[in-house]
């Protein structure tokens, strides 16, 4: 039994070893190749790195719980855009005219409402129709993107409110607000998966659904709550990001779902469910953003970034498979 513990420990920390390698490589390579004099490993450059992982990072936390549960959600991209549209547009609605800057709180609340409702719709369809989550969310990815365009045609939704921008760019206790929000979400989802009954049931359902059903866990509502949670996290991520930019294009959020699934898998969460960790996912998201930023720093163009990230994903998948290869009992089917 000993080697499985070693394998498991290796697996859990694999993503962090990978990040350390990236830091070392870009740190050294950066000295020569990069034109800017700033040192890549400078503390505030690292802080900037974390800030840039926030949009995908927050959503990836929700995706982790969905995948631990054995499901998946391809519709996070359009939900991300729709929440932002409602947030920015609601600030221009006449009924809130009298509130002045107070409208910001209402705008955030509406954005979160949109995220939760769209998440709940996904959850109910998966539960009540029994259709596979991949197909349901593939459908809702198209449907929600349609809703985004329906809202404002092909035009971007734009409202620049400088107080909102100042809030979003503020840095209480010296740490940028988005990082604090991200930290809060990490804490909550980590606490949920490690400490609460709901979280532990997610593992049980993902690992052995029949055992969970026989033990009396109500799988349906559990799934709906997970989709509501990811909807909430997408809304938080969207509100945080668009408060600082003020304008959203109908095509925003494109391919977000693919990058997020990549990060969660890199972090060690199994696609078939039952195993996964929030901390691993945070590692996965940072690893990808670090790769993008590092390659940019040493002058590699977008082509190289895509080529490298795609290949690394496949290499990690192969290593992961080697690590938990069962003994020779396995039939060579």
């Amino acid at each position: 039994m000993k080697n499985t513990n070693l394998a498991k420990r290796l697996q859990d920390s694999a993503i962090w070893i990978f990040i350390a390698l990236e830091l070392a490589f870009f740190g050294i390579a950066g000295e020569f190749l990069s034109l800017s004099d700033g040192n890549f490993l400078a503390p505030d450059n690292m802080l900037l790195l974390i800030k840039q992982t926030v949009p995908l990072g927050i959503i990836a936390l929700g995706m982790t719980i969905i995948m631990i549960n054995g499901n998946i959600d391809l519709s996070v991209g359009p939900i991300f855009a729709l929440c932002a549209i409602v947030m920015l547009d609601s600030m221009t609605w006449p009924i809130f005219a009298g509130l002045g800057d107070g409208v910001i709180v209402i705008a955030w609340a509406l954005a979160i409402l949109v995220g939760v409702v769209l998440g709940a719709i996904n959850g109910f369809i998966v539960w009540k129709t029994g259709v596979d989550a991949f197909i349901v969310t593939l459908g809702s990815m198209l449907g929600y993107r349609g809703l985004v365009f329906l809202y404002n045609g092909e035009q971007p939704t734009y409202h620049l409110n400088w107080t909102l921008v100042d809030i979003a760019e503020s840095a209480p206790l010296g740490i940028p607000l988005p990082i604090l929000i991200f930290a809060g979400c990490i804490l909550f989802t980590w606490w949920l998966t490690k400490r609460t009954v709901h979280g532990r049931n997610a593992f049980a359902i993902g690992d052995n659904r029949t055992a969970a059903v026989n033990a009396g866990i109500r799988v349906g509502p559990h799934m709906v709550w997970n989709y509501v949670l990811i909807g909430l996290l997408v809304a938080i991520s969207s509100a945080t990001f668009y408060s600082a930019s003020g304008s959203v294009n109908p095509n925003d959020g494109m391919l977000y779902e693919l990058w997020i699934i990549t990060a969660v898998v890199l972090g060690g969460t199994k696609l078939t469910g039952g195993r996964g960790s929030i901390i691993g996912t945070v590692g996965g998201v940072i690893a990808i953003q670090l790769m993008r930023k590092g390659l940019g720093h040493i002058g590699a163009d977008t082509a190289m970034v895509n080529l490298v990230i795609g290949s690394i994903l496949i290499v990690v998948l192969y290593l992961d498979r080697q690590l938990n290869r069962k003994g020779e009992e396995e039939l060579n089917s």
Partner: protein
Amino acid sequence: MNFRKTLVTTTALASFAMVGAAAAADYTIGITQNNVGVDSYQTTYEKAFIAAAEANDKVDAVVLDAGGDVARQIAQMEDLIQQNVDAIIIWPTNGQAVIPAVRKAHNAGIPVIVTNSNIAEEGFDFVRSFSGPDNVTQGARSAEIMCDKFKEMGIENEAQVVQISGQPGYTTAIERAGGFEDRLPEVCPNVTLVETQPGDWNREKSQQVMEAFLVKYDDIDGVYSGDDNMGVGALNAAKAADRAGDIIFVGATNFAVGYEAMGRGEYWGSIYQSPVDDAEAALQTAIDVLDGKDIPFLNYFDTPKITQDNMSEFDKPVF
């Protein structure tokens, strides 16, 4: 730490040639471009910009490409600010969304020059200068080209025109469409613009949009597209439905493909705009700002009309 030092010294010479940096470059100028991979204009712009920067030994250039993603462009702006470059040139992916990032650079004391496609009004007081074509005039000139041709053909009283605009939310697209839609009724009051759909600077999408127009409208007399890349897409659709003969195509930013189509007599006219001028003007504006010279806020460079009649005066675009 000494390991890194020895590593640095031994390879410094090797890297010296590659970076081509002069003894001590006065200025480090960072540029974040819109989407280099989207079309040849932008690729040629990047090459011209790098060439201009290397030719000028007072300048070190940090060249980044946002790949059309707003989030990535904002991250690149933050990176450039963090590396405290002397000046930042930005080719905005979305004229409105980048304003807060531009303000951050302004507050950090780094002068910002916008190139090719301006940012929205609210951002003007954080920007030192805009260097690029005057897109509103371009739109108006295209309207004039189309109207003159209709008059020549004598159909200026019942002609129907469709428009394929650029990427929604992109200032150049909004300004050119605005210029065209304002100027057309002034020169040809009876010509009706029946529909406008975005082609997103994408030739394939423009071809599909044109196919839809061809199905919807039996007689189309003129097509105005935001640039020749989209214009050629529309032309291909018309040729496939063999109705290209009786449609007047007018575009902007004359691409090589547009120039050839004009040579073949299928494409009527466009606006001549060279990415090389665009790039060099942007770099020069940045250097002037750093040298303390005062330059006009809107620093346009001229983009003349080009039609089948006068195309021989221009040499074929290089992109």
